[in-house]
């Protein structure tokens, strides 16, 4: 390193120092200050919700932006011991898991076709799903509601799961297609010489190799489902079927004077999405990188 930095003419030591750093320079203290400031802004409202759950209503009224003193755990215990919370969490989990499974299975299969088969309708199929990005739930929600009602799926969790799978397919397929296309052709040829059919290749090679992409889209689908609000708002009127987002809202209006308990309920309901995300953060960022490159 030293040898290199002495080689160029005298005017260039500064660029050379940057060269070693390139885009990945060692951060100086201003970077840390700004980065922590950004983190603080992002986290403060979340902390407000979580810490607010540890306060009492009189603490919140007397000092809205203060810290808990003393810490009260009773709000959290109340929520955790209520059947309402667990029932809604169970509904959300059921919907989230089945949506994720459906999206991943159907998405991988369709993306495999688009990525690896040559046929005349391939471009049309890709365009169909790409156009789906422009069909957000908002536009379809009213007729979707009428259709779900016609199918007799009102107030059932399946009335949420099926549309959610359908609406998550475009993103899933568009993220997965470049992943599957990147699997080298030689691998497929080698497999076929060894006597594997294309479906056999799909099961034995494609599925294991596409795990990073699948985890990415799976987590995204689960989080989207866990947070989904508009569809349950239209489809679920029966409190027994409420998922957590509807539950949070109805809890917040029902106990609007009991702010501390609302905050406790709210912070408990965001835990699963946060846990899933932080466990797989690297994968999600990696998956987005693949999608951006593709």
């Amino acid at each position, binding site marked *: 390193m030293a040898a290199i930095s002495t080689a160029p003419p005298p005017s260039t030591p500064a660029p050379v120092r940057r060269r070693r750093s390139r885009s990945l*320079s*060692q951060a100086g203290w201003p970077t840390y200050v700004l980065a922590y400031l950004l983190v603080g802004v992002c986290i403060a409202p979340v902390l407000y919700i979580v810490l607010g759950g540890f306060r009492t209503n009189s603490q919140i009224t007397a000092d809205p*932006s203060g810290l808990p003193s003393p810490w009260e755990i009773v709000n959290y215990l109340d929520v955790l011991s209520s059947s309402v919370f667990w029932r809604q969490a169970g509904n959300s989990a059921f919907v989230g898991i089945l949506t994720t499974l459906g999206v991943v299975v159907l998405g991988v299969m369709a993306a495999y*076709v688009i990525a690896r088969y040559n046929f005349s309708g391939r471009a049309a199929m890709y365009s169909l799903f790409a156009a789906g990005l422009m069909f957000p739930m908002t536009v379809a929600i009213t*007729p979707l509601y009428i259709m779900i009602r016609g199918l007799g799926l009102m107030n059932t969790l399946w009335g949420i799961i099926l549309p959610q799978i359908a609406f998550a397919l475009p993103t899933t397929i568009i993220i997965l297609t470049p992943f599957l296309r990147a699997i080298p052709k030689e691998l497929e040829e080698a497999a076929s010489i060894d006597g594997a059919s294309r479906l056999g290749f799909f099961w034995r090679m494609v599925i294991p190799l596409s795990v990073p992409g699948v985890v990415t889209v799976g987590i995204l689908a689960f989080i989207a489902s866990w947070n989904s609000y508009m569809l349950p708002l239209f489809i679920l009127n029966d409190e027994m079927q409420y998922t957590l987002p509807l539950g949070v809202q109805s809890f917040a209006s029902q106990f609007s004077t009991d702010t501390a308990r609302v905050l406790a309920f709210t912070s408990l*309901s965001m835990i699963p999405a946060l846990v899933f995300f932080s466990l797989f953060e690297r994968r999600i960022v990696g998956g987005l*990188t693949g999608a951006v490159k593709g």
Partner: protein
Amino acid sequence: MSDSLGENSVAVRTPPEGRGPVGGGATAAPAPAGRRRGSADWRKRAEIAILAGPAILLFLAFVVFPVVMAAYYGFYRWKGFGPPTDFVGLENYRLILTDSSFHDALMHNGFIVVMSLVLQGPAAIAFALLLNQKMRGRSLIRVLIFVPYVIAEVIVGTGWSLMLQTTGAVNDFLEKIGLPDWTVDWLSDPDIAIWSLMLIITWKYIGFAVILFLAGLQSIPEELFEAAAIDGASYWQMQRSITLPLLGPTIRIWAFLSIIGALQLFDLVYIIWGQYISATAGTSTMATYMVLNGRLAGAYGYGNAVAVVLFVISLIIALIYQRYVLRRDTEGAITEGKKK
């Protein structure tokens, strides 16, 4: 390129398939080429149908069909029960396009589209450059700035509406740090509410933009920076001549997602401002207008017509954007199969 490879691999693959046990009785040796190819073709089509069929069916049934039905229902005055019979032609559309509260909602959407790009874009690029350095706790920082994006709209809405109350945490905090003049009625004052909404939107979605841009930055080859540094380029020159152009596709895709999202905005407004006061607070959007005047008013024909207007507006903007901005990025991806 992948196409010509594909052709080759089909040619290579055909014989082993014909020899396989499922090859429709065609044995390896003297099967006529046409028949063998036909059976492989048939098999390929069956595979395509089995693999892609379920996804396509579900997609058509739950995404495309409802949108088509919206166009149909939009021509009727309909309470949502029984088949629609009261055909009113374009009357619903005339009402929508002359309704001043729809104009307001449309203006709000336009404002949100523009301000989202203006507020989030430059800040997110700056933060991505900032975080694309070796620093302690880098991965933790990434997780933390992504947290608002991962949290449900309902939670964001509930939390912020409590904090932004006149007696809430934000005003209290401003007084504590000696800015009592800055305390305002964040949610009800029509001059301020839409800015509060922008604040919340920026807070919630900027992490996504930063992570997307970080991913884009990491795909830029290091050699370019090395070469530029050898030529004596300064840090800012490198960012302007290398980073920004090469980050272009990522920025354009992000802007597209941001525009579409802003046009469809519903959850946050509906949760924070409720069903009725979003219009008086000046934060109504086309989607909240649709729900309020459609389903909640029991006017399903009208609601569907609003959905169609919303869809057409989004589609026109998306097509223009794709035609003039995204074209060079998506050209390869979408037209690849058609290459002659």
